[in-house]
């Protein structure tokens, strides 16, 4: 019995203009990480998925992630309950109607940019949220201005690109489109601050900062590998030690997912036409052989769980 509910204050007393509830459309790995991170910072989260089975599956994955944090002393069991209680899943866009900010995070693994699908999602979101709500996308190589063209109020669209791993990265790339308003940008920035991160202002450009730097980094590492200059492990170790990078280029590629990396490369090459973005033959060969990185346990390294146990057989890349 919840006797306390009778003492709940009238919602009209609660402040307006506050960012309290966020929506996520498409709750794959990135959407799940955003949901968990936001809920841990006190936000209410509503995510939209295609079916109730998928919603159940996602809650199972969210629980597993939180259990892993508990096993490493990160949070307590009651904190886990609290976090999960803030997250709600639905198949209906109507559940987004109270959201102050909605982020589209549909999978970028499918073929093509899926720009039409994303635009359709933007329109569906706009149909239910209030006029002050921000509509955003976790875009890596796409342009927020392109997605915003279908909106009645394109000024409310802001690109929010989360840096992986979302729980650990201190920054978020915040992208203002051609028609994005200052008000919308500031609101998105407030959200980023509320979830404990720093907003890096990015003037709209394919790849933002992060992906645009990472793609040639990985490509050049592949070149070095193909020339037989050094092994996968040695290249990674050299970059970690010499440049202070947390991970080397191949570890990074495996973590992002080689199919995703290839997609970034294709998109950036299509935008800029510069060969430094063109997907390395090594990456293409691996993806064709279904070596996708950590996602399926084999990429530049073979994995047991999240730990690399050996590096790739030379026959694959030669």
């Amino acid at each position: 019995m919840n006797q306390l509910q009778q003492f709940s204050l009238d919602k009209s007393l609660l402040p307006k203009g506050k960012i309290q509830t966020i929506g996520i459309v498409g709750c794959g790995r990135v959407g799940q990480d955003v949901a968990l991170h936001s809920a841990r910072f006190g936000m209410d989260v509503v995510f939209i998925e295609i079916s109730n089975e998928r919603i159940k599956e996602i809650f199972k994955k969210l629980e597993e992630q939180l259990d892993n944090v508990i096993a490493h002393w990160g949070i307590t069991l009651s904190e886990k309950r609290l976090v999960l209680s803030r997250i709600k899943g639905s198949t209906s866009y109507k559940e987004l109607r109270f959201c102050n900010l909605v982020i589209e995070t549909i999978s970028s693994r499918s073929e093509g940019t899926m720009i039409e699908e994303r635009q359709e999602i933007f329109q569906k979101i706009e149909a239910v949220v209030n006029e002050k709500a921000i509509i955003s996308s976790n875009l890596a190589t796409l342009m927020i201005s392109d997605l915003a063209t279908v909106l009645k109020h394109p000024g409310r669209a802001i690109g929010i690109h989360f840096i992986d791993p979302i729980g650990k990265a201190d920054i978020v790339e915040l992208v203002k489109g051609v028609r994005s308003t200052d008000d919308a940008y500031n609101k998105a920035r407030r959200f980023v601050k509320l979830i404990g991160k720093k907003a890096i202002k990015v003037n709209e450009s394919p790849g933002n900062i992060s992906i645009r730097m990472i793609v040639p980094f990985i490509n050049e590492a592949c070149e070095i590998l193909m020339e037989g200059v050094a092994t996968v492990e040695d290249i990674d170790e050299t970059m970690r030690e010499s440049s202070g990078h947390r991970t080397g280029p191949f570890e990074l590629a495996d973590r992002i997912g080689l199919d995703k990396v290839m997609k970034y490369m294709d998109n950036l090459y299509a935008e800029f036409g510069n060969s430094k973005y063109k997907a390395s033959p090594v990456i293409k060969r691996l993806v064709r052989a279904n070596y996708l990185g950590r996602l399926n346990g084999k990429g530049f390294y073979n994995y047991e769980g999240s730990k690399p146990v050996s590096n790739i057989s030379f026959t694959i890349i030669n």
Partner: protein
Amino acid sequence: MKIIVLNCGSSSIKYQLIDMPEKQVLAKGLVEKISLKGSTIKHTMADGTEHQFEGQILDHQQGIEYLLGVLTSKEYGSLGSLNEIDAVGHRVVHGAEEFSGSVLINQEVIDALEKSTELAPLHNPPNLKGIYAMQQLLPDAPQVGVFDTAFHQTMPEQVYLYALPYILYEKYKIRRYGFHGTSHKYISARACEILGVPIEKQKIITCHLGNGSSVAAIKNGMSFDTSMGMTPTEGLIMGTRTGDLDPGALLFLADKEEISIKYTSSLINKFSGVLGISGVSSDMRDVEKAAGKGDHRAQLALDMFAYRVKKYIGAYAAALGGVDIIVFAGGIGENDIETRKNILEDLDFLGIKTDPDKLGTRGKETLLTTDDSQVKVIVVLTDEEMMIAKDTFEIVKRK
């Protein structure tokens, strides 16, 4: 002036609605087991009638919303509307070296408090939540922060400094700060008032024992030493905190468990203490029940807790060059008969003669020692909220 005082602990909120300067308590209550099973609000009205409401309180924001709802309700409330509240007094755990006294809360104060959060990860966040919630719900009511650390700012430097390179103190202000200052100040003064002795001439050891626990050594009415340190983690074993721990062991643990600094902090603040040893609960009542049923680890946790307090009493008696008064306060200090007995056992060499008829007292201000005991041991009901209301009144009046 109607002042609402909020004392937000890690899983509870103590509140009082006090009419100052008359010191009339219009209502008071305790929100308990926030984010634990079986949350409750125990509410006491001005006429003393008590009511308990059960439900689910997921976090401090929700707890505050409900308690304000109770205060403005037709049946149980003491207010017609939230607008009748003239000021809000907040207990704030860590003021660092920034705040040696109570202050009117403004954005500068909030920024400083947010910076101090890393020093008190379990407490400053709920304190801040109380401040934010009140800013939103009562935007026109002035808010005052009363700091736990303020009373201990009289510690001399040979007591508050750690034996780290001095340059690190200058750079980061790493030092002992101590907490529960408002309580230690109140209970030492109250003990002397009850005993009819001048506080300036007493050597007092105050034991605030609750979910958070600390001991203070008070000389000439001022804090001389205290068990909590730069953060509330040091000192006594607590509900979920380690208390004293070899720093070398902590480094070893972080390395072996391969966990980050953030998770290591979580380990020593949220998973340890009485909960970590007993595996039962952070709440002494639950642990005592389990010990009563023969649970060895539960008993071990109780024994460890009592021993650590005893050790500090001995140490502070040495630091003060003797002791005249020992004070027990806080949830455990005021109510946990067995734990108090364990602590006081074998301390007769200090000059303590306990009165067996009084040792079983619970929830009352009581002298636990005989009339001829050289050292007086007394239970005082801590009233941090009244101290906070007093400071709030003074500051808002001067505004």
